[in-house]
């Protein structure tokens, strides 16, 4: 058995059935082993697409996503995807080929210091230096990717090690580490948490992506059902709380709901659960929830006190913490106030004229979609409209590049999600800017005949940048006008993806139905006005209650 065959066997033993990648010189031995190795491999049309498909796969299932690339440019193309996975804490294992050991450091063909490159965009990375390291390193890589706060791990494997003899594959050793031993939560912390919750008159839950990643969605829902504490969520926390939960106000932050942002500023106890006080959430940090004590529950100790000092913090598993801190609350005045705000500041979908209003369209699509639909969003105005106006009831069903904000994420993420969940509807929602950033992945959709529904919202602009240019740069539209976009329906047709363009409201219902009911992939290209903006908006440097709601 050679090293490459060993890698395939090891991946299979880690219950990996699907990988995404792109072949090349230094990874050819592994591709030879994949040829009849019994793993499903999906060829993406760019390594960045492979990394993002692995992310979509991981996010739609909670399992590890695996991507493979060659040395040099193959590996550098993976980097944006790995950084995306790092910022959103997604378990991904990336395998890269490297030039042969004796050529490393000689500026050989397609040689780049991938281990060095990976240091700032991976949770951890390895370079394999001998065949007998392969097993332990693969085992460690999966453990690191999935344990604690998950993240991407890269394994760089020189070509000679892939080709050389490897130990006979028996099985990977189960690593006994101290992480496996769970220590009980400090009872005094639990007691103090319960006392703080009980004595608060305006407690608020601030729920992030960590809850879903901890597999603690049900525990959080139970906590809410027990305490009736009002709640807001982050972009990555969407889907954790049922969208129609009585005191849930939706997303908080720069494009959060008015009710959520006011509630944050008014609360006297903020319970942050699997969230990290990101600048897009807090606005002006000094004024964020300035009347509140903070309880911070997060598995990553480095997040505690990083941006906001916590009055109390617990870094144990949320699955154990949340049931332990359930306590009866007496907050009816606060609950009533939340309901009043929810009603006063409810989203409105009335919109004058014939032109399609994207928020209303997305709301309509959310109501029409099958129950367990996965929504993969790209990055920009449409992403915020999706977060504000669509709804899902599982965190695995809203896949959005949140921390890194990577344009071009939506289509390859949808590829990964659809491969992972072939029986569920997957909708990719993109903008005309983002769509073009990984448009080559339409080739992957064609190759695998993936029935992805693409909703392309086209304002012929880089809309979010245009909005900021309008608001903060005197309307100087530097390089954001895309009136020379290609004909998207024709472009999609070149990949055997049927589609249509709509421009007015009266076309919507039928077109959305055709999109959802298409057997295979479909592109619904929707033209909207370039003047539409995302509201509300907390301007840079302002506190969250200083929201702009129009151009005036």
């Amino acid at each position, binding site marked *: 058995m050679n090293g490459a065959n060993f890698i395939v066997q090891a991946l299979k033993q880690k219950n990996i059935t699907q990988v995404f990648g792109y072949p090349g010189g230094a990874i050819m031995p592994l591709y030879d082993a994949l040829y009849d190795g019994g793993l499903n491999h999906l060829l993406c049309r760019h390594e960045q697409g492979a990394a993002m498909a692995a992310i979509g796969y991981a996010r739609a299932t909670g399992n590890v996503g695996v991507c493979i690339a060659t040395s040099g440019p193959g590996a550098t193309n993976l980097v944006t995807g790995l950084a995306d996975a790092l910022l959103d804490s997604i378990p991904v294992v990336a395998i890269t080929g490297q030039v042969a050991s004796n050529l490393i450091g000689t500026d050989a063909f397609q040689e780049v210091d991938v281990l*060095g490159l990976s240091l700032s965009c991976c949770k951890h990375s390895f370079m394999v230096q001998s065949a007998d390291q392969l097993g332990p390193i693969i085992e460690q890589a999966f453990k690191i990717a999935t344990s604690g706060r998950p993240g991407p791990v890269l394994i760089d494997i020189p070509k000679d090690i892939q080709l050389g003899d490897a130990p006979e594959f028996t099985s990977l050793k189960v690593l006994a580490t101290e992480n496996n031993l769970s220590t009980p939560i400090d009872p005094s912390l639990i007691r103090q948490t319960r006392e703080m919750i009980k004595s608060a008159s305006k407690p608020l839950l601030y729920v992030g992506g960590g809850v879903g990643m901890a597999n603690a969605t049900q525990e959080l829902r139970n906590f809410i059902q027990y305490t009736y504490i009002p709640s807001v969520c982050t972009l990555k926390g969407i889907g954790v709380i049922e969208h129609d939960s009585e005191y849930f106000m939706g997303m908080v932050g720069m494009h959060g709901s008015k009710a959520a942002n006011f509630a944050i500023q008014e609360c006297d106890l903020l319970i942050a659960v699997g969230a990290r006080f990101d600048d897009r959430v807090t606005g002006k940090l000094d004024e964020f929830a300035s009347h509140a004590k903070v309880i911070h529950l997060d598995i990553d*100790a*480095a997040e505690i006190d990083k941006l906001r000092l916590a009055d109390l913090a617990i870094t144990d598993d949320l699955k154990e913490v949340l049931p332990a801190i359930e306590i009866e609350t007496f907050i009816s005045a606060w609950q009533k106030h939340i309901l009043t705000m929810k009603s006063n500041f409810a989203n409105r979908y009335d919109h004058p004229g014939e032109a399609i209003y994207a928020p209303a369209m997305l709301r309509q699509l959310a109501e029409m979609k099958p129950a367990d639909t996965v929504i993969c969003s790209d990055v920009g105005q449409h992403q915020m409209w999706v977060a504000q106006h669509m709804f899902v009831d599982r965190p695995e069903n809203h896949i959005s590049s949140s921390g890194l904000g990577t344009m071009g994420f939506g289509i390859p993420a949808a590829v990964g999600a659809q491969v992972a969940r072939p029986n569920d509807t997957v909708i990719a929602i993109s903008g005309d800017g983002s769509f073009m950033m990984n448009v080559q992945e339409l080739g992957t959709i064609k190759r695998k005949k993936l029935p992805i529904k693409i909703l392309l919202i086209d304002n012929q602009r880089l809309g979010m940048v245009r909005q900021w240019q309008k608001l903060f740069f005197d309307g100087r539209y530097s390089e954001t006008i895309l009136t020379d976009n290609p004909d998207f329906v024709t472009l999609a047709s070149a990949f055997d993806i049927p589609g249509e363009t709509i421009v007015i409201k009266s076309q919507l219902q039928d077109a959305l139905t055709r999109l959802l009911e298409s057997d295979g992939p479909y592109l619904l290209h929707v033209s909207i006005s370039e003047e539409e903006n995302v509201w509300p908006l907390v301007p840079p440097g302002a506190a969250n209650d200083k929201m702009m709601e129009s151009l005036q």
Partner: protein
Amino acid sequence: MKYLLIIQGENSPELLERLLRVCRHRGFRVQNINGETTENEKSLHVTLTVCSDRPVGLLSKQIEKLFGITQVAAMGQEQVIKASA
């Protein structure tokens, strides 16, 4: 503020690089560094003097997270002076 960090880890070719990258990225300037490998290059011991306006906990907690780091102790300047007196 100046801080002293005493760090131990299981050595790997890139561990020192990993450590210094985190110091720089998290906003700490390295003013002094001493280190050596022991046990036939299996372990790495490093002492760093770093300087930053940020509290040292922001750095030490990031270093503790690094795979391969086994121990981190961080001291403020005053503690260092007391310890050496």
